[in-house]
């Protein structure tokens, strides 16, 4: 059946249906909330994420003894409002995640679709490029590039976007190869459609769901990598409030003020968890729809 291509492995078994749709709903809720915070948060929070108040360093969050609603999540080691920084950090994580997915998605999909569609030498070349990419250690390259050029926001996006396309390429290539051999593509050839038209109208719409699932995985990975790079001091430069950077800055104070490391850590975990739930739910939903 044609649906064979589009049905993900294990869609039939696994968690019960209501649990999976609950996962999708939860994923949507989390990602939606973080996206809302990223877009509108900085204008809703009354504090400036960069404004220091050295007289009010490491103020405790509201749920602990001595906390106040002035700084609901407390302040950091320089007295900056932690909620403002968290919300601003969400913006940085989301922008980096989305930009990386767009850049790497374009590169990977183009390479994979071309290799899978044309086969032969084109495919050999694409496979070679994928193999080369897989043998490059992302963190080391990021280290080297930042060492040479200094850390900046755009550099992080560039490095991640240019390095995280491998999964897009592999998935686009293998799904294109399957779709290419289906009769509706043969019918399009017989109808006199051009290669470009066949790729655009017959192949791409039918691999898009797979690419959407890869996009969620890659976005989660990009956000984690950005946090890791920032933690190492190779990502977003201070004073920008990246969550990875907040964790790095907080690690010196974690013994006496553990919330400064827990808050951005939990935020990071919840966002990545939500994106992964969204990806799984998306895969199940689209998979069952196609299988029918």
């Amino acid at each position: 059946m044609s649906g064979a291509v589009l049905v993900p492995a294990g869609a039939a078994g696994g968690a019960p249906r209501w649990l999976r749709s609950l996962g999708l709903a939860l994923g949507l809720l989390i990602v939606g909330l973080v996206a809302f915070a990223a877009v509108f948060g900085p204008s809703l929070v009354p504090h400036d994420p960069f404004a220091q108040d050295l007289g009010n360093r490491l103020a405790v969050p509201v749920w602990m003894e001595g906390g106040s609603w002035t700084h609901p999540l407390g302040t950091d080691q320089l007295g900056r409002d932690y909620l403002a920084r968290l919300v601003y950090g969400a913006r940085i994580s989301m922008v980096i995640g989305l930009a990386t997915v767009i850049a790497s998605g374009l590169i990977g999909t183009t390479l994979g679709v071309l290799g899978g569609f044309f086969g032969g030498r084109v495919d050999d070349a694409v496979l070679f490029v994928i193999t080369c990419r897989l043998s490059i250690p992302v963190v080391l390259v990021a280290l080297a590039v930042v060492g040479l050029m200094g850390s900046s926001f755009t550099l992080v996006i560039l490095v991640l976007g240019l390095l995280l396309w491998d999964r897009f390429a592999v998935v686009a290539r293998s799904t294109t190869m399957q779709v290419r051999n289906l009769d509706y593509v043969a019918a399009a050839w017989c109808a006199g459609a051009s290669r470009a038209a066949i790729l655009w109208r017959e192949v791409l719409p039918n691999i898009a769901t797979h690419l959407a699932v890869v996009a969620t995985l890659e976005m989660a990975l990009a956000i984690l990598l950005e946090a890791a790079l920032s933690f190492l001091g190779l990502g977003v430069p201070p004073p920008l409030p990246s969550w990875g950077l907040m964790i790095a800055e907080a690690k010196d104070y974690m013994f006496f003020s553990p919330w400064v490391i827990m808050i951005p850590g939990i935020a990071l975990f919840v966002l990545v968890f939500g994106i992964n739930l969204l990806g799984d739910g998306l895969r199940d939903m689209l998979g069952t729809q196609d299988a029918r």
Partner: protein
Amino acid sequence: MTAAIEVRGLRRVFRVRQGLFAPPRQVVAVDGVSFAVPAGSVLGVVGESGCGKSTLARLILGLLPPTEGEVLVDGRRLSEMDRRARARLIQPVFQDPFASLNPRRRVKDIVAMPLVAQGSVPAAEAARRVAEMLERVGLSQEQGERFPAQLSGGQRQRVAIARALVLRPRIVVCDEPTSALDVSVQAQILNLLAELRRDLGLTYLFISHNLAVVEHVASEVAVMYLGRIVERNESEALFRAPAHPYTRALLASVLTPEPGLGVPDVGLGDTLPDPANIPPGCRFHPRCPQAFGRCPAEAPAAWPAAGGGFAECHLLDPAAPGAAPREALRQEA
């Protein structure tokens, strides 16, 4: 009058990679096939799976380039034809209507696709012709708005037929158009195809493994075995007096509704033919109940058969002295 389809010495070899360093294996899917289909007639091609009939269809549709030989459609070489001109002349109907329709497009867009590919049909004109064609194959305008997943197998095959005919081609290659459908729907689709052929003056190349279907639609029948046409004749003559032992075995293998008879034993054995390893001499001899000394040694020529056709079998060689007695011996034993 030029033939609608003419095929000369067509041969297609696939190279199957076996590993990084192993030499590729050669699979001869179509091996020296020549025939002509007169305009307005139906050539039925029958054979077991793996005999090369689908490869033949793909060669004639221009989906695969031939290794040797050439395909002429309406007197013109297929290989020299512009893809749009080819599309206006010859169109396919594939076997599986679940795989032959793009699941992400609406029925009306699927049917309009060949018109869009022409690049010169205005949108209003295309919409009108799509509506006309949908009605012609028995689909409502409302069904045109649906996605293929919302249609039944028979309805999907009607969509595929509408797509094939929307450019008003003169030739349609039907590759097992009914074998993926429920039996109750098969007859409807066959009748639709027959009706459209009559009304639009189409020529069909009709590929099937179902002899009853071929007998129903074809004016002429070609029997394929391991890439070659081993017998070809007028439909009526072939079904009345099959000349090739393979054709006889195929006809004997048709299940009868008589209870208790079970699956008929046709004496073919259970070794399936392997196109990667074609036997020498007559390619049918390992499975032939009437094979004799000459069969493994020498490929048979095409001898005339009753009814104006031919069969590639040594038994039909009027100058073969050894044929008759040995055949008789075998049958006694």
